[in-house]
């Protein structure tokens, strides 16, 4: 009998709850608020059967485009054939967590604004652009001793010792 390609096929492990994390769902998943435009990660919670996204979306990150009573609408990119479609799905909040993908950017924005304000106050010119890691600076090798290695002449007797 063939394997079948149902909605939840091949999700035995990805939809199962992690080891020793089964049972009651922590309340913060229900207390979080989501606004339109937020980035969210979709991670299916196998304990809640309603509002589950399809297994394709497990592990995807998208933006919130709609907020309803118990679910949020997430816009996720999906490659279909030769193009990428922006798919809009509705997912219950248990299967969603706020994404940290923009966290570094947001913090950098705040820091850069502070730096720019400081520089403006002092009257200097600064660049807040990120620089890629350059080549490592040169250094002197410490504690190096020179050991000259020369080949030793071939000694027939020593080599045959093991053999004959």
């Amino acid at each position, binding site marked *: 009998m063939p394997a079948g390609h149902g909605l939840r096929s091949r999700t035995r492990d990805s939809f199962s709850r992690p080891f*020793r*994390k*089964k*049972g*009651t*769902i922590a*309340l*913060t998943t*229900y*207390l*979080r*608020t*989501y*606004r339109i435009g937020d980035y969210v990660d979709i991670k299916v919670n196998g304990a809640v059967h309603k509002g589950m996204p399809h297994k394709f979306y497990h592990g995807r990150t998208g933006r919130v485009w709609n*907020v*309803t*009573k*118990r*679910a*949020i609408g997430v816009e996720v990119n999906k490659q279909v054939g030769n193009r990428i479609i922006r798919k809009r799905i509705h997912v219950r*909040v248990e299967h969603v967590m706020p994404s940290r993908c923009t966290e570094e950017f947001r913090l950098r924005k705040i820091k850069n604004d502070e730096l720019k304000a400081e520089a403006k106050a002092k009257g200097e010119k600064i660049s807040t652009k990120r620089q890629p890691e350059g080549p490592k600076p040169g250094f002197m090798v410490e504690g190096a001793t020179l050991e000259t290695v020369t080949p030793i002449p071939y000694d027939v007797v020593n080599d045959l010792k093991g053999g004959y």
Partner: protein
Amino acid sequence: MVQTLREKFEPAWLTLALQGTNAISSSAKRGHWFLHLRYWRRMRDDFGRFAALSENRYSHIWESFTAMAFVKAQKSKAYFKRYQVKFKRRRQGKTDYRARIRLINQDKNKYNTPKYRFVVRFTNKDIIAQVTSASIAGDIVLAAAYAHELPRYGLEVGLTNYAAAYCTGLLLARRVLKRLEMDEEYEGNVEATGEDYSVEPAETRRPFRALLDVGLIRTTTGNRVFGALKGALDGGLDIPHSDKRFAGFDKDKKELDAEVHRKYVFGGHVAAYMKTLIEDEPEKYQTHFSDYIKRGIEPDGLEELYKNVHAAIRADPTFKKSEKEPPKEHKRTSAPGFWYNLKKLTYEERKAKLIARLQALNSAAGDDEDDDDE
């Protein structure tokens, strides 16, 4: 040792299975999987092997099938490795998470609008009523009322009965409304009749809505929680409810007898008991209601007393901090009390302690080495 255990615990069919193959085959025909020969051969041959069998992670299941264990039921290392602890408050038996999730869950399209719970909890000597809203950092209490505040309003005895619960609920409701400056708009039911009263929305603002959170109590008709609920409703809060569980609800006629409920709200049931005790068992009356007698509270005066308390609550529901000083903290110096309730050390303190310990160890080792050298 093994033999006596066997005699003590083995049910009859077990003995039979071990002794006679005939019995086994006949039971096997009937389909009892646990009487199949290969299982019992294993056990029969070697008691040690059975002991080993009982130490695997399915041993507890095996033991339940065999109706009684030969070996003492151990919680093996595997058991502890796989054990998942329940949430802390569930372990303490204090929170019903199933109910809590449903009470707290706010519609996502209402964003940060708080969803208030009218929480009522009873201890042995006190009633705690709070209006709370949930947040990730922890629940935020908007206002709280305790039965031990009722002496301020003139009620000093019977602080955990139905009438006191009504007073506490009423106090909390008036407190909340006063804090939100809605107390003029929403007077609630000033005359406490027992009938079902729901707040009508006024012109400017909608009534304050909260959801009743009973906790872990069994919601039977006439429970004191519903007394507190009635107090809050009459105080002017909007709490969705039905009259099914108020004291005085008739199961057969399926309607609330307002008279009976009013009796409970004014302590009529207590007064009736007092009267019967005075007539039948005066000594018991003296011991049971000694505090009432000390304050000169008669059974007939109870209703008047509660009416005055209600009026006093409505007059000034603001919370007054008690002038009592907090009890002196005793510094514990000797075992075992020394180890109780220790303050949690900070990260720096713990690191410093470790460094001190290592230094002490090194210096001691250094001394030992010096001694050895000498």
